[in-house]
């Protein structure tokens, strides 16, 4: 599953010369003195979070204490499929007994390849234990699953450290996986480093919880421009971003009920009738599983 970038001509292949060899074991790097952050030297110009000026940033609703979140499994189960057809009509294909388990790409082993290892090492050195247990290298892109209680510290390091320097978070999207038990709602941050010309993805896997509204920390204090993106994720998926300055609906009306892009929210639509023939709305037509 893990296909790392191989082509050295790729502009994003930018391995820092100070990074340890990519084939060294990950655990060793974390504890080795070379990789441990030293004040003012190894850390580049990353600022410790306690020295950051926060007096002009929103404080309302910040979580008072952090509880260790559970690790996620190596593989995310998507769903179990039966037969060839989904909803809409009986399966007359003759394959009705076929059962398939569909999974997302699984946790990748070191080395990740290219500059991915350098970035992963640096993240681990600056924010030990940030990982929620799954890192996926797939289709030349890397996804870090992060513990929600570490996300602000990690984002600050990603933004400020000279070797990471992810200045922008161009996009945030939510994804609803109702069949992935214990991680029903995902929040995906796509980060861009203009300096190093790299992109990474930071993902939070959140359990839906009793009321269907999982909490996670807002990144507005680190990336002011994720404001609207987090509002959209709240609006469409019902994820509550603690510490967001004004977490209100943005695309739907203020008094709307429900979160439309969840999988259990119906698409709606009416029958189309033409000369006596009736075509059901798209969500009720036959689908292929």
């Amino acid at each position, binding site marked *: 599953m893990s296909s790392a970038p191989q082509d050295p001509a790729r502009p994003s292949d930018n391995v820092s010369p100070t990074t340890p060899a990519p084939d060294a074991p990950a655990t060793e790097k974390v504890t080795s003195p070379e990789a441990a952050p030293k004040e003012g030297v190894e850390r580049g110009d990353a600022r410790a979070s306690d020295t950051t000026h926060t007096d002009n940033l929103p404080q309302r609703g910040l979580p008072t204490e952090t509880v260790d979140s559970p690790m996620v499994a190596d593989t995310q189960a998507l769903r179990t499929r039966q037969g060839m057809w989904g909803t809409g009509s009986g399966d007359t294909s003759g394959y009705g007994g076929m059962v398939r388990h569909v999974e997302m790409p699984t946790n990748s082993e070191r080395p990740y390849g290219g500059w991915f290892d350098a970035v992963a090492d640096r993240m681990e050195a600056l924010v030990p234990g940030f990982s929620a247990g799954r890192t996926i290298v797939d289709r030349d892109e890397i996804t870090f699953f992060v513990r929600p209680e570490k996300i602000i510290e990690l984002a600050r390091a990603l933004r400020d450290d000279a070797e990471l320097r992810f200045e922008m978070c161009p996009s945030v999207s939510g994804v609803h996986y109702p069949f992935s038990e214990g991680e029903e709602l995902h929040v995906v941050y796509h980060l*861009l480093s203009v300096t190093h010309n790299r992109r990474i993805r930071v993902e939070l896997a959140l359990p839906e919880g009793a009321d269907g509204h999982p909490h996670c920390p807002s990144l507005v204090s680190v990336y002011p421009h994720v404001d609207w993106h987090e509002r959209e994720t709240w609006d469409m998926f019902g994820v509550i971003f603690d510490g967001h300055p004004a977490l209100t609906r943005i695309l739907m009306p203020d008094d709307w009920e429900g979160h439309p892009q969840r999988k259990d929210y119906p698409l709606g639509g009416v029958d189309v009738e033409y000369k006596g023939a009736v075509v059901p709305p798209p969500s009720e037509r036959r689908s*292929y599983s």
Partner: protein
Amino acid sequence: MSSHDMNHETVQNGEDQHMDSTGATAVDAVNAGMSAPSDGEVDRVYLAQGGDWDEIVAAQGERGDETIVVNMGPQHPSTHGVLRLILEMDGETVTSLRPGIGFLHTGIEKNMEFRTWTQGVTFLTRADYVAPIFNEVAYCLAVEKLLGVTEDIPERANILRVLMMELNRISSHLVAIGTGGMEIGALTVMTIGFREREMILDFFEAVTGLRMNHAYIRPGGVANDLPEGGLDHLRRVISWLEKHLPEYGIFCNENPIFKGRMHVAHLDLTQCFALGVTGPVLRATGFPHDLRKSQPYCGYETYDFEVKTWDTSDAYGRFRVREAEMWESLKIVKQCAERLEKTTGQPVMVEDPKIKWPAQLTVGPDGQGNSHEHIKHIMGESMEALIHHFKIVTEGFRVPAGQVYQAIESPKGELACHLVSDGGTRPYRAHLRDPGFHHLQAAPMMCEGSMMSDVVVAVASLDPVLGGVDR
């Protein structure tokens, strides 16, 4: 600025709207010291419908209120669609601006989850309808990355994609410059802008069948090749643009009124990075960031063009960047024309029959449709071909499970598509990162403290298209 417990009034145009909780944005955090919208009670509402300004001014003068809340939009000609701006005014000075969006939310992303991967193009093209080709390309590149066929896209398909994108970049910039000029009184810029855009849309219509909402770029390639005489048509468009593009510079570049109005809406490099702003707004600060150069796609690394910048960090700089970019796009279009001539007859869709659309379109006496040869083949010659056609068209193809993020440089900045597949025949989740949505967050920082008339210039310089903003 008065204290926040001062009486508040609201001036509204159009229908009655309640004050919603658009509230303080992150920009406040950066822009601390500016006054935020207060929680004061609104005790008087004026409804401005034209011709009644004297009464409002008289009534307001008697009361002597200091803070007035103005609802600009959602029905307002200078908001580029249904954008609502909530302004707190101290006289003519904007003390607070909050954009309210969502009036054009059509659920494109949700709808795509119920259609095949190919049908998704039909929805996405309607997002940013001024630059539809870019929505299609971002989505199709993401699908191709998920399929792992990025390297298999035929050369001619990539040339056609680049050609359509660059022509679309010119037409999008023409709308940005034209409507932006119209809003400050430079009406001729608008009329000539739409004249040139019409030439480009005519070419689009000849190639795709439609002036907009093309659904021309498909996963695996493009819907069909250039029509008969397409290259000659393209050369006519090129010579027309070469003749008429200089007019914008002659009209505007040194026009004192134009410059006087446009040196506003300042946003420097630091502010751009704090707000994640990309595209012409970022390049107008002198920073040459362009995804076509830094993370090339569709073979952009093989074309000769420059990233144009300006150094004034204001609306005038953005105008000059857009003007220069149109010339660079025209340069690319000319290179495309040469390459298209050399690759005549080559395929425009990936070879894999499990992915590619079974038939190319042709123009018949009743309009564009499936070619007669194809209909004859599936209806009269091959049962297997008919089954295959039926399967690909109704069921579609399957895409292996996983997720990708594909960003391209649209005329407005970084346009990206985040796609998740669960291995099925439909997108499990499709998210469009529209630059207009992102950039409207910068409007308060550009406008607060300036005049109300400059708000119009500032919003126009961001060039948001509400179809993309609200999706």
